[in-house]
Each structure stands twice: as C-alpha cells, then as structure tokens.
C-alpha cells in the first residue's frame, strides 16, 4: 500500500503560541487512523492546520497528499486535491441554502462548462440524505443555521458523501450524536471506506470505534503523538483513562499552549 497521506514535523501556532510541536504521522491508502487525547492537547489544531484555517500559522513541516505538499495550496485547492475536514464546530451561514452550497462545491470540482444538472444534483443529494435519514427539508434550510448539534454533524457527513474526498478528517463527529445517529453516521463513513480513501478520526470515545474499526490508534498529548497501537489501545483508554499513559511517559501536564 502506498503512503496516501504524510505529516512530517508539522509545527503550528495560534496567536503566537506553538501548539503543534513537530507532528508526524503516515497514513496508507485505505487505512483508518484514530487520534484520541485529553482536551486541549492539539487535536483540532492539527485538523485546522492541515485544512489551512487562517488563524493557524504553520511554521514548519510538510503535509503530503499523494506526495504533493498541501501546505503550498490555498484552502479551496486543498479541498479540490481531496482533503475533507468534518469540523468540530461547523459555521452557520444565513441565506445560503444547503443545496446551493453543495451544488457550488460539486461544481467547483467539475469546472466551468461542466456543471452538474439541477435534476441530477437534487437526485444525488436526496439519495444521500435518505441514507443518513435526514429530513428532506434540510436541503433548503440555510446552511447549519439553527441545526442542532447532531444535525450539524450529520450534515458534515452528507457533504463528505457528496464530495467523495481522498483523505477524510473527522473532528469529534460523534459529539452531540445520539446512539441511533451515531450508527447512521458510522454506516455512512463505512460505506465510503475503500482502497483509495483514508480516514483520520479524532474522537474522545471508543464507542465510535466499535462502529468504525480503526487500523491504528494514536494518543495525542502536548501537541504530538505520544503513543500508538491498535484498536485495543482505544479500549484500554476507554476503561482506564489517560493517567497510565502519562505515568508511563512521565508527562505531568498533557495540554499544550496553556501559559
């Protein structure tokens, strides 16, 4: 299997505080990796830095998707290259309907003169919404406006399904989901698993990993990976918490950037 995605020595800061301190991770095509870790250890910072959020300044390192450094690209180009981040806190945008938004996103991939027909688009969107058991009215609702926490998460997965990215990062996709919704979302993700597509799943709970079986599990502390293992690592963390990891590694304060 080829290396689909490589993060090498990534350093990133926000408002002058260094949060990522040389982050390394390699994901092969078709793999699912999970990142767990206590609050404030840099998980969302990693996701945002990879996607190119303007608040984060990457000061060193490389992020390669199929060998191409996405850090050289604009945010939209990263998405077109195949990156997708389901955000922990998706934006609400008044006046832009879910349908208009997604059609623009799909057309950005297809290019001018090759736009998707309205009927074809509506059929696709309806089909995916049905898989996610979303009420069809969400098509014409303003993007994320007034959506409940769980509805926003489902809407992130809907976008992933329609945009068919190569590398998917899910940042706490399970937070705010009830048990049934969790199963539906997990089924959506599993349906997207393939030889050519990889996932990086950030979560606090092992429960999600019962539904989406990871190939590798990593523990993040102090802005880098401090321990890696298989699915059994997640089970132990769920049962015992993080203290044993800290003790094993001699870490007192696992957070990062807290002056």
């Amino acid at each position, binding site marked *: 299997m080829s290396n689909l995605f490589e993060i090498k020595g990534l350093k990133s800061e926000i408002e002058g505080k260094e949060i990522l301190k040389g982050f390394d991770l390699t994901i092969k095509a078709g793999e699912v990796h999970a990142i767990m870790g206590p609050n404030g250890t840099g998980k969302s910072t990693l996701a945002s830095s990879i996607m190119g*959020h303007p608040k984060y300044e990457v000061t060193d390192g490389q992020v390669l998707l199929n060998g191409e450094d996405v850090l050289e690209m604009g945010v939209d180009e990263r998405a077109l290259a195949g990156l997708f981040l389901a955000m922990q806190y998706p934006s609400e945008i008044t006046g832009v309907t879910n349908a208009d938004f997604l059609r623009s996103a799909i057309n950005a991939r297809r290019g001018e003169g090759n736009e998707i027909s309205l009927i074809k688009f509506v059929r696709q969107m309806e089909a995916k919404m049905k898989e996610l058991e979303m009420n069809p009215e969400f098509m014409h609702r303003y993007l994320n406006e007034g959506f409940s926490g769980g509805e926003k998460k489902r809407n992130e997965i809907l976008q992933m399904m329609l945009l068919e990215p190569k590398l998917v990062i899910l940042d706490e996709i399970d937070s705010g989901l009830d048990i049934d919704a969790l199963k539906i979302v997990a089924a959506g993700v599993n349906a997207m698993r393939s030889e050519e597509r990889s996932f990086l799943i950030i979560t606090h709970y092992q429960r999600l990993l019962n539904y989406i079986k990871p190939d590798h599990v990593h523990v993040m502390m102090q802005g880098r990976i401090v321990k890696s293992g298989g699915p059994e690592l997640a089970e132990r963390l769920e049962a015992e918490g993080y203290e044993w990891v800290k003790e094993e590694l001699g870490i007192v304060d696992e957070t990062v950037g807290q002056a």
Partner: protein
Amino acid sequence: MSTPTASFGRDAASSIARSKNEPAWLVAWRENAGELASRLELPKPEKTPIQRWPLDLYGTDRPGAKIDSASQLPEALTKLLPAEAGGALIVQHNSSVVYTHLSDELKAKGVVLASLEEAARSHEELVRKHLMTAYAPDEHKLAALHAALWNGGVFLYVPRGVEIEEPVQALLFADDAEATFVPHVLIVAEANSRVTVVENASTAVGDAALVLNGAVEVFAKAGSQVRYAAVHSLEKGAVDVSYRRAVLEQDARIEWIVGELQDGNILSDTKTILKGNGSTSDAKIITVGTGKQRMSLTTGAVHFGLSTESDMITRAVMKEEGTAVINGVTKIEKGATRANGQQTEKVLMLSPKARGDANPILLIDEDDVKAGHAASVGQVNAEQVHYLMSRGISKTEAERLIIYGFLDPVVSEIPLESVREQLQRILERKLG
C-alpha cells in the same frame, strides 16, 4: 442652490390643482399643504445632511400617454410583468396613471383599483377619510410638498372578507426628468380581507436629476392581512424619498418586503402603527450601497395595542464609497402590555471607503413587554469564507454566496417571480 421655501407655497399648489381640474375639496386641501410646505422645515434624519440634496426639483406636470394594453408599455416595464397576463395592474408614467387593469371578477366583489386622482372624485369619502392621516402633511416640509404635489397615484380598496390571491402590481416609472413624480399609494383593506401588493419604482432618465417624493399608506382593518413588497431602482441622479406607513386595527397584519436598490440618494422611512390589540408587523428591508450613494433608511414600529408584535430587519451591503445610516425605532406606548418589538440592523462592509451606521432605538413606556435589538457592522465573516473554501469553493465564489445569502431573507420573499428576477438582475449589477 435655491431653497424650497422661496419657490413653493399656497399659490403654486393652488394653481397646479386648479389646472388639473381637481375637485374643490382637494384644491383646498392642496392649498393648505402648499402653505405648510412654505414654512415647515425639512426632516432631520440622523447623520444625513439632506439639506444639500436637490430636493427643490419639483418638476412640472407631465402626464404620460394613456395606453390600452400592458403590451404597449416600454420594454423595461413589460419585463416586470408576470408571464401570465391578466393580473391586477396599475401603471404610473411620469406625472399620471396611464394604465389600470382589474379583473371583472374582482370588480364584482367590490375591489377598487384606480389612480388616486380618479379615486379623489369617484371615492371621495374613502379617500378623504384616509389620505395622509398616517403620514400627515404637517410632519415636515417633504410631507407637505408630497401632499401639495402628489399625482397619479394608486388607490386600492379591498372590501370586507375579500381575499385576493394574485399580487396586485403597481409600476411607478419616470422617463422625463422634468416631470413631477410624486406617487401616493393608498390601500384600504377592510376587515378580514387579504391582499399582496408588489410595487416597482424606476426611472429611465440617464444621469439627469429628478426627485421621487413618494408615500405609501396602508390601512389594515380588523383581521386583515396586507403584504407590501417594493423594489426601487432609480438611477444615479434621482433622489428617492419614500415614506411608508401602515396603521393596523385589531389582529391585522402587515408585511413589508423592501429592496432599496437605487443608484442615487435615498431617504426611506417605513413605519407601522400597531393600534389594534393582537396586530402584528414584519418589515424586511435590504439595500446595496454603491458609488457615492448616501442613504438614510429607517424602520419604525409604534405599539399601542395589547399583545402586539413587531419585527424589523434591515440588511445593507455597502460597497465603494456608499454611506448608509440605518435607524430602527421600536416604541412601546404605555398600556401596550405584552407587546413584543424586535429589530435587527446589519451592515456588511465590502470596501474600506464605505460607511455604515446602525442605530437601534428602543423607547419603552410599559413594563410588561418584550423588546430586543441586534445591530452589527462588519465585514464578510472569515470563518464562513473558510468553511466554504474548505469544501473547494473559491474565495470569490464563497464571498459571493455569503453576500447574496446576507440579502436572501428579502430576495426569497418577493411575491412575484418576475420581480424577484428583476431584483436578482439589479443585485448582480450592483454587486458586480
């Protein structure tokens, strides 16, 4: 620049009214208004120095040529008509109404659609009882001038219990910069009636200077529902003065949906008087400021009745060197218990030279009420742009989506598709 005081008064008002053979009551009424115009001061909208605007361009009486069918309208206007012809339509061209159409079915139900000039004769009692009682001639000089000079105009009467499904369309159009262009729209909706009106005001005078000194008065009787949508797209040299007023009786409802999309200066004031218990008002105004446009946009709600509710939203996108002062005034009078008045003013700034000012004002004289306001002036939200771009949408397209989205709550509610399309065209031109 000459001041209006010197050039207009009782005599001028009188001679215009007489030359048009207006009924005696109206001539006297005009004379009184002319008198007021000669001594009243201009209104003083917050932070907008209108005394420097060319408001003394009264023009002369230039009636448009009557036509027999809507198809004879200029192309700019036929585009605004719904694909399916035959709906209620009234057209003012320069200083007079040139076309009116109302189906026999609605006529049979007692609905009246006529020029206000005609109604002043044919429905004297109704007109006298309502005309400029919500927007009084003695409010200020522009109101007095409006009273003295209004021409053409629209009179719509909807009898008790009559519900009109298709929107009634009013086109107000000037292509002669010399014309006095002072339309007055007077709507009387009797108890439990329902009607939607879509008004368009536009000009084709190139860069010439012109003043539209217009007014709308809506009288919504008990349990009636009136929806009033207006799209104004006057050209650069035209000053648009538009005072809109609604008076609501018990359980009546008004919805204002207004696109102020002129290229010239704007003084607009849209106010609802919630007189009757349980009456409700909803006002949505959008604008796009371009060039060196100056605008003063005010929404107002005055609560007298118990359990009355008002909501007012103004959204402005400001480009280039446009300047907007946006006022929202919610007034809850003593005794209006359980009233609820909400307002929001939002300005989206697209250029460092544009200016936007939002002034929410709450005047509350009663304890048991709810009132709220939210005002903001800001740029396109970077977080939102990032979210859209993270899905592959370019920066330009992301900003476009957000800006159109900002205006969508009004655009999507315009009741006639043809007018909604016009609005889209204007937005595309103004937003560039």
